[in-house]
């Protein structure tokens, strides 16, 4: 009887130990990847400033920007996308709307399709990082809802983006 209990305790401890070892490795790797692996855990916490609003938290950043006629997530936005994906993974009830946007040059219909491609690529990256399909809706606004008006590279660059909006924000 006693033996049995000891075995069980050992078993539990060793499980914990192995888990710790694993997560240590994970952290190492996340660091090596240049990253922010530690922030995701904070998402679950309920008090104080919401991590989504906290300006010091990466989750407060909500826009992914693109090059002209491109839909690939540039490496500088990968951490941002990952952080939101982890938040969604750890908060099963959270939902996001991804809105793809383009600058206003060229065809409105092509831009609508390009905006969709941008939103889809963020969605796919999130799905691969632990978020679930039901949590994410990807839509396009094309060039119809510009954040910056007028012509010129600064306005165009501002409008080539995907916005991440959480439920209640849209």
């Amino acid at each position, binding site marked *: 009887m006693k033996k049995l209990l000891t075995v069980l305790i050992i078993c539990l401890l060793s499980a914990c130990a192995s888990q710790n070892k694993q997560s240590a490795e994970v952290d190492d790797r996340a660091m090596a990847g240049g990253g922010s692996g530690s922030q995701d855990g904070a998402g679950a916490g309920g008090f104080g400033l919401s991590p989504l609003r906290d300006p010091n938290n990466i989750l407060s950043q909500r826009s992914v920007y693109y090059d002209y006629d491109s839909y690939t997530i540039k490496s500088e936005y990968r951490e941002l996308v990952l952080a939101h994906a982890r938040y969604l993974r750890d908060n099963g009830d959270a939902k996001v709307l991804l809105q793809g946007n383009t600058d206003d040059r060229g*065809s409105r*219909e092509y831009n609508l399709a390009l905006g969709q491609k941008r939103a*889809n690529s963020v969605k796919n990256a999130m799905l691969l990082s632990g978020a679930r399909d039901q949590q994410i809706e990807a839509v*396009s606004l*094309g060039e119809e809802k510009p954040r910056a008006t007028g012509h010129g590279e600064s306005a165009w660059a501002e409008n080539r983006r995907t916005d991440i909006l959480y439920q209640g924000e849209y």
Partner: protein
Amino acid sequence: MRVFTRYCYLALSLLLWSAQVHATLNIEIFGGGSKKIPVAIVPFSQEERLPQSITAIVSADLERTGLFKMVGTFGQTPHEPGDIVYADWQSRGASAIVIGSTHLLPDGRVDVRFRLMDVAKTSQITGFTGVVPSDQLRVAAHRIADIIYEALTGDMGVFSTRIAFVAKTGNKFALQIADSDGYNAHSIIEYSEPIISPAWSPDGSKIAYVSFENKKPVIYVQTLATRERKAVANFKGSNSAPAWSPNGDKLAVVLTLHGGSQIFLINADGSGLQRLAQSPGIDTEPNFSPDGRSIIFTSDRGGSPQIYRMAISGGNAGVAERLTFEGSYNVSPRFSPDGKSFTYIHRNGDRFNIALQGLANRQVQLLTDSKFDESPSFAPNGKMILYATEISGRGILSVVSSDGQTKQRLSSQTGDIREPSWGPLLKSQRNNHFIN
């Protein structure tokens, strides 16, 4: 009163004079004009009493085609064939002269008479008389322009057709319908969310368009006479780029059911969803060939947006053939009414311009040289292309002749104008209650 009349004449002749200067300017800019038909349009008698000058509209219509050169009247105002001193008109280089009269009737309607005279033969080519309500004078003027155009060029006149476009005023978006010269505009629907891609049904009774009123693009078809409208494509994801089949039975639409934008076919009532093409990238902006057997569309399957053609039935259905090879951005294709060529937007350096390309010889011709041209749409006779462009940040509509020789703004609308679509040529518009 006499003084007033004289001022009116002065104003009218000034108008015509300035119109002539404009035509000369076009010739100087484009070096064309050798084929232009010289026509003199004499203001109709008593026209100054009307709320609307008929001959001013006729002149503007004809001039916009780039096929006519307006000859000044130099104060001569014949209204009847007997008044015409043909030698004078011949010396001014006019080969045809338009004369006519208007009489305001006691009931408020207007009796309009017009004749098109051959200067060399000193005889009448065509003409008509008709009684029009005073609010239909524009319609009458466009009809006269059609008759003159048809008599002198042998082609169909399209001045009596209508156009659709989207006007943005403040945060309001209005889908509007206007005469072919942009006047008489009225909204058929207004929203605080964007409207894009209006498309006329082949019989001119309906318009399909994309509205963002549900926070995402959904395709509606609206019947113009009843204002009744129906969401014909409201699938998961985005629904856009409607294009009517030539017989009006079906619509090609772009859906994102499986992630990317792909072309589908639905019945005009929204039923019978059927996939048309499959590609790993974006397929959008379908447009039917006049025979209904194929579509042209924009696709980025080759790494940049280019125009492709694909049969929609038969052995080669679904096999896309690339049509554009110049440059890295070619979008918004539209077949010419004869199916022998297509117009599209070509990025030319940092400019976006209207291009015209033959399907047989693949020769590309750039028709415009402004900065942000969009949404080309052929006139039903194929001789002109309506498009959206920008002047100091504001969207306006412009018309270019298919040979690129003449461009003219449709300057009547207010607000930010975009997404023009030229309506079909209808039998009813060709008869509108006139007795020839």
